[in-house]
């Protein structure tokens, strides 16, 4: 900005004619800064109160990477046990994603009887023999020998190697790692994607390629005598033991139903009550007061409290969730609707009344058209919010996907299931946001 030069007399004149601008109050001058300082002071207090610094530094951050990787990848953990007779026995983890008798191209037997595991490419591999193990990292072989029941870290081993308690771990980055002990080698081999997403390993359809699956379903011999291959495949998909599609979709539907029914009931009950609560429609102070305090009560008793109370009453399940949303939102809607009614333009009611309409007609044609936009848009807003909120009250037992999500997280091993459910929830939220926006635009126009 180029400066505008003022003479001294100009300046005095300006100062004198606009004193309020040149001498603002202390709050106007420093208020913003004081607010910022207050906020900062509060954040520092909060930091100390929750001991954030220490908790963060005590966190097991090395696990965070594994958990995040679990969202989008899976791991096979074959274990090569050294037998006393000098042979190798391969053991897989229980419910291995590789199935009963895995036949994979990354686990091979070498011509000399040793076993080989490749990590992504042949430049990174582990050759396993009972007396020594050779780990090849970027085409450079390192021999790991055993001494006194300990695996010995090879000399000049690169950073990918580490040794702890007589166990040598070779890390191949994302592709996995191999832990070498004197009795066994534990291989962790990680792959991108969600394993066995459609069919689990016990299913007859497991491991089929898409064309193969298609031909089996369309024209293959019937696998189960009493049902067609298509229904069997659908059943196998829903009962997939790892992904539990049937259960997840059922719980997701419960969450949607909770939000839909709860919001609809709340709106239906709050609408007539709002007319009783509105001062300008119901001319009775006690009635206004009672309804308004009723709204305040149901609204201010937290949704958590209602959820837990109804979970005790109905037992776990979506009925409790519906009841909790219904009771809480009756209060919220009642407050919003009655405020909308109290803010209407009274001329329209007078007009309807002047032509001799009944009390019901006065409200129907004098009030409802004016509050309809507010009622519709707020109800739809809360419907959206409840679809998001129903997830979390479900976690305390009020039905829906929340509890399933919480259980999947508690184990710390099913992060891929968490990712799957989060994806479904996000899709549902976006779909219903768009439905609600479309409805809003349809019903009350673009102005919102």
């Amino acid at each position, binding site marked *: 900005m*180029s400066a505008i030069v003022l003479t001294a007399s100009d300046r005095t004149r300006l100062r004198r004619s606009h004193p309020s601008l040149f001498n603002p109050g202390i709050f106007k001058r420093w208020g913003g800064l004081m607010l910022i300082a207050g906020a900062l002071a509060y954040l520092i207090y909060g930091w100390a109160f929750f001991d954030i610094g220490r908790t963060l530094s005590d966190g097991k951050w090395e696990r965070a990477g594994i958990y995040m990787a679990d969202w989008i990848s899976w791991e096979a953990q074959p274990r090569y046990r050294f037998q006393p007779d000098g042979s190798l026995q391969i053991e897989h983890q229980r419910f291995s994603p590789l199935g009963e008798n895995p036949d994979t191209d990354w686990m091979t037997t070498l011509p000399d009887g040793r076993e080989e595991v490749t990590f992504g490419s042949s430049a990174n591999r582990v050759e396993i023999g009972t007396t020594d193990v050779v780990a090849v990292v970027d085409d450079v072989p390192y021999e790991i020998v055993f001494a006194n029941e300990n695996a010995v870290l090879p000399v000049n081993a690169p950073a990918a190697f580490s040794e702890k308690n007589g166990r040598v771990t070779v890390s191949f980055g994302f592709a996995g790692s191999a832990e070498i002990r004197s009795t066994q080698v534990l291989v962790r081999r990680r792959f991108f994607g969600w394993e066995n997403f459609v069919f689990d390993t016990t299913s007859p359809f497991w491991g089929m390629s898409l064309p193969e699956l298609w031909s089996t379903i369309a024209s293959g011999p019937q696998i189960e005598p009493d049902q067609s291959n298509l229904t069997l495949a659908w059943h196998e998909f829903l009962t997939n033991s790892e992904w539990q599609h049937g259960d997840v979709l059922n719980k997701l539907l419960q969450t949607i139903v909770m939000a839909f029914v709860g919001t609809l009931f709340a709106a239906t009950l709050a609408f007539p009550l709002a007319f009783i609560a509105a001062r300008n429609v119901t001319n009775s102070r006690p009635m206004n007061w009672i309804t308004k305090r009723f709204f305040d009560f149901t609204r201010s008793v937290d949704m958590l409290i209602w959820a837990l109370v109804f979970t005790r009453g109905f037992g776990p399940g*979506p*009925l409790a969730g519906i009841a909790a949303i219904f009771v809480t939102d009756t209060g919220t809607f009642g407050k919003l609707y009655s405020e909308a009614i109290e803010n209407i333009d009274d001329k329209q009611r007078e007009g309807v009344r002047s032509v001799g309409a009944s009390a019901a007609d006065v409200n129907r044609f004098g009030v409802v058209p004016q509050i309809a936009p507010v009622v519709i848009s707020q109800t739809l807003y809360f419907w959206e919010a409840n679809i998001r909120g129903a997830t979390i009250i479900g976690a305390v037992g009020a039905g829906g996907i929340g509890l399933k999500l919480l259980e999947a997280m508690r184990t710390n091993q099913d992060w891929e299931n968490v990712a799957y459910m989060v994806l479904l929830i996000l899709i549902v939220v976006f779909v219903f946001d768009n439905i609600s926006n479309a409805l809003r635009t349809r019903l009350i126009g673009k102005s919102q």
Partner: protein
Amino acid sequence: MADITNDGRELSAATAAIHRHYRQLLATKRLYSALAVAGIAIVLVLALIFANDASSGKFVDRIPYLFDFIKNFVPDDPFEIIRAMFDLPSPYADGSFKYDYEVGRHYLFGTGLYVPEYFFEMLVTLNIAFMSTLIGGLFAFLLCFVAASNLGVAAPVRWIVRRILELMRAFPEIVLAGMLAAVLSLGPIAAIFAVSVHTVGALGKMFFEVVENADMKPDDGLRAVGANWFERVRFAIVPQVMPNFVSYFLLRTEINVRASTIIGAVGGGGIGEVFRQSIGRDHAAKTYAIVILLFLTIVAIDQLSGWLRRRLVGNAAFQFGA
């Protein structure tokens, strides 16, 4: 609409045509309304049947016994509630956790002074709510100017920022909390993180809508004297939008107090967690003490925030939103 009936007088041909068209439009509108209501009713019935089947207690079976559990929730005498609230020794003490109120005391500085357990837990919950509103509000403030369409930010940047805000809003809080809790072991910091992220998304959306409705004349004026983007935002937009921002910020504070009680119940700590435990164990006096405390706090926060909002922006600033 009330029908305009033909009361026997003859209508002219033109008027009759208008009248016929009006009747036709009305019939169509009524048909659509009836169809919509019928559709909603059918979906509702199906939804209720589904919900009933999915619940462990069936609606019709449970209704007579719905509040039976309240029988277990009769405190031994009304003063028990007060004793539970203020951690005073109970005359019913039998060594069980149910009557052991003193165990939860948080002593201050090693003296005899203590903060009663539920007041302390309430403070934890409030601190979670305030911290996350502050942190979330700060980031929302920084992001909203980039997301608004009237400040000349490149369309792709705006698109990305808006999608990020939507994602933050829609991402289930419980998963955000769970992810961090898995790393930090359960606790309030995970709750702060989860509520903050949601707050950025929710406030960011409201903020950028306010910015988009701002009067652009001050901006034009600043642009005319050669101000850069930051100066224009600072001196043309911020002063206009600040009252609305503060109003939304206060509303979000109210919402976050509720959100942090709920997230507390699923492992975030604070009053939600002790409440879930006490209602689950049938500790009547403790449960009532917490309900009363929570109710009073929420009412107080709502009143305070409402009063502040009215002072800052006037009566118009009461608008809810997700």
